[in-house]
Every structure is written in C-alpha cells, then in structure tokens.
C-alpha cells in the first residue's frame, strides 16, 4: 500500500448539490438490508458537472473566496460530460477561474474522494498553491438498467465541492492508497470505452457477492494497516466517514474494525450510494461540518477495485454549506 504524508494543506469547506427529484424504494427487504429508502436522481438535462458547479459556486460565495486564488481544479467522476475533452477545463471556464488554473479529471468512483484529496493536496503543497477546488460527484442513475433490482434502487446522484487552502499551520494529511485490478469486472460498465465485448450492454454491472467479499475482507485489513503504519489510536478518532456502499456491508466493516457505530455517519437512507460523492455528501448532510481539534478518518473503496484511507486532525473548522437542491 502507498502511504503518503502531506503537509501544509487544510480542508476549508465542503458543499453538496443533489437533484430535487426523489426516487422512493418500495421493497422493504431491500431497504432493511441496504439502508436505502430513497435517493435523488437527475433528469436527462443535468450532468454531474452541473451539480458540482452549483456546489462550487455556493461554497466559493459562502466562504467569500477570491476566484483568482484558485489555481487548481480537480474533477473526480465516472460520469464526465464527454469522453473528450476533460470536464475540469469546462468547469474552470464556467466558474470563471483563471487560465493559470491547473485542471485535471480523475475517473475513479467509490475511492475517488480520497484519491482526489491526495492528488490536490500533494500538488498544492509542491507548488504552494493558495487555493484548490476538488469537485467530486456522479450521476450513476443514468448508467443503471432500470430493471436491474440490484443496482437501480441503490444508486443516487450527487455533486460536491471541497475547498482546500495552503496553510503552514495545518496538521499533516495522511493517506494510504491501494488497488486490485484483478477484480475490475466486479463493478463495470461494459462496452463503455474502446474495449468491446461479446454482448452490447452498456449498463452498469455489479457483482454483489464479490464486492461484498472485497469490502468486508479487504477494507478492515487495509484500514488497520493504515492505522498501524501511522501509529494512530482508533479510540481517539472523532469521526469515521466511510464510503456509503450499503448498510449491510458498512455495518460489517465497522464491526470487523471494532468501530463504535456512534462514531460513524450514514447518508444511505435518504441519498443511497452516490458513488464518489458519498464521503463529502455524508459530511454535509449528517455532520454539517467538522470542528477544530477533531480527528477524522475517511475511507473510500470499490470500483477498480481501488481503496483509499485518509486521516487528519483538524487545525480549523471545516465549514459546510447548506445542502443545495437543483
């Protein structure tokens, strides 16, 4: 596993935008197992970048940030506007950011928020970049087969924005990242790129059992390795925010890790699994911010297969904008 320590960068604020349209699940057995009672879904016209744009505008406005100070924008999504060009440049222009802004797309899902945090904070620290914007989200509802009862009721849509700042007083950000491409077919949209298979389906496929095995066996191990590597004390961590896969899987991971459920947060009931957006969405909707001196551990895991764990002790409050609905 890659263990990375990054200095001088702090998370300043987070915002989240969701579509107004709510899709309600009726299958009681499914709700009980997955924890997903309803989720938000976009109509055809709204893309992930539209949700992230609204989240970014609101956050920039709430924090009174000078857009000229934002010199890096990273967009993490598996649902970009186009196959090419990247969507981050489109967002740079739409948001009115300077041309000196470095733009990058990262096509990761469930682990994407942690990978995005690693990449943006590493580049900001190297270049002493004052402000950075990490936009993370997905509109997976557009990729599911409406008749597939293992995916359609599970996935919701959301777009988020996280503002980071160069700050020499901040505590180090710690990361542990890894991948296992052997399981790449466990969560896949076949025929969605250059490699064409035998059948023509272009809808999301999820091998529930293999993903469950990965989540409940691999993730407790890698989180414990991360904690051991950086000699952290699990009992002193204030908030654990994990990717919201589904209740059954998350509860089993918490149990294996010996984490008290009181220290975890879940946004599954109202928003479902929002792929790359789950961690920032959960912070906005369930925690409403994070206080100075609190320590936080995030863990994203899934499609790839890929995983990332993040820890820091806050030296400032993380501000959260009010949830945006468009």
């Amino acid at each position, binding site marked *: 596993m890659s263990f990375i320590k990054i200095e001088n960068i702090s998370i300043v604020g987070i915002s989240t935008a969701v579509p107004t349209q709510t899709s309600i699940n009726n299958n009681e*057995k*499914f709700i*009980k*197992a997955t924890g997903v009672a309803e989720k938000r879904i976009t109509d055809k016209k709204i893309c992930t970048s539209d949700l992230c744009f609204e989240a970014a505008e609101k956050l920039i406005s709430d924090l009174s940030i000078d857009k000229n100070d934002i010199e890096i924008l990273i967009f993490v999504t598996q649902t970009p506007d186009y196959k090419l060009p990247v969507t981050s440049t489109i967002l740079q222009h739409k948001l009115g950011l300077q041309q000196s802004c470095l733009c990058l797309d990262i096509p990761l899902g469930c682990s994407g928020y942690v990978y995005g945090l690693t990449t943006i904070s590493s580049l900001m620290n190297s270049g002493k970049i004052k402000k950075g914007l990490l936009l993370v989200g997905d509109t997976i509802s557009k990729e599911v087969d409406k008749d597939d*009862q*293992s995916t359609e009721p599970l996935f919701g849509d959301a777009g988020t924005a996280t503002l980071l700042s160069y700050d020499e007083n901040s505590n180090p950000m710690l990361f542990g990242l890894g991948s296992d491409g052997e399981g790449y077919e466990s969560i896949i949209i076949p025929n969605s790129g250059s490699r064409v298979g035998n059948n023509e389906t272009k809808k999301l496929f999820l*091998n*529930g*059992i*293999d993903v*469950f*095995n990965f989540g*409940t*066996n691999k993730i407790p191990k890698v989180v414990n390795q991360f904690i051991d590597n950086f000699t952290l004390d699990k009992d002193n961590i204030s908030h654990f925010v994990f990717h919201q896969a589904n209740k*059954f899987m998350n509860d*089993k991971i918490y149990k294996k890790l010996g984490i008290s459920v009181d220290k975890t947060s879940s946004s599954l009931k109202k928003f479902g699994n929002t792929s790359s957006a789950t961690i920032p969405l959960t912070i906005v909707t369930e925690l409403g911010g994070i206080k100075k001196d609190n320590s936080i551990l995030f863990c994203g895991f899934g499609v790839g297969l890929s995983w990332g764990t993040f820890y820091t002790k806050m030296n400032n409050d993380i501000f959260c904008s009010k949830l945006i609905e468009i």
Partner: protein
Amino acid sequence: MEQEKFLEQFIAQFDDEPTGVTMDTDFRDIDDWDSLTALGVISMIDDEYNVKLSGEELKSLKSIRDIFNIVKTKIG
C-alpha cells in the same frame, strides 16, 4: 462441522423461514431466495466458518449440501 447446524444457519438468512427445506433442496428454488439472501449466506459462512465464498463459486453450486461441502473442503 455439523450438517444440522449449517442447515439452521442457512435457513436463518431468510426473513420468513422457509419450511420443508433439506440439505438436498436446490436453494434457488426456495421462494424468497434472491441476491440479498445470497449475501446473507456468504456473510454467515464468513462469520461462522471464516471461509470466503466467491460469486463464481456460489454460481456453480445447486443444493445446500453443495455449499456445505465446499465450506467443509475450504476449512480443510
């Protein structure tokens, strides 16, 4: 590893416990069997026997006895 206990643990994965189920029942024929029950069974086998069963392995099995036998083999 006891067959009787395994059968009980298997049946406990259903919300409404099915009747008339034996070790030779084809688990896919049980009324309420679905992908969520399959996850419950995989999870139970992991918890109770510390054995990992993949989606591909489960796919190749037919009866509850088949599951019992593969778990038994994996325990060694």
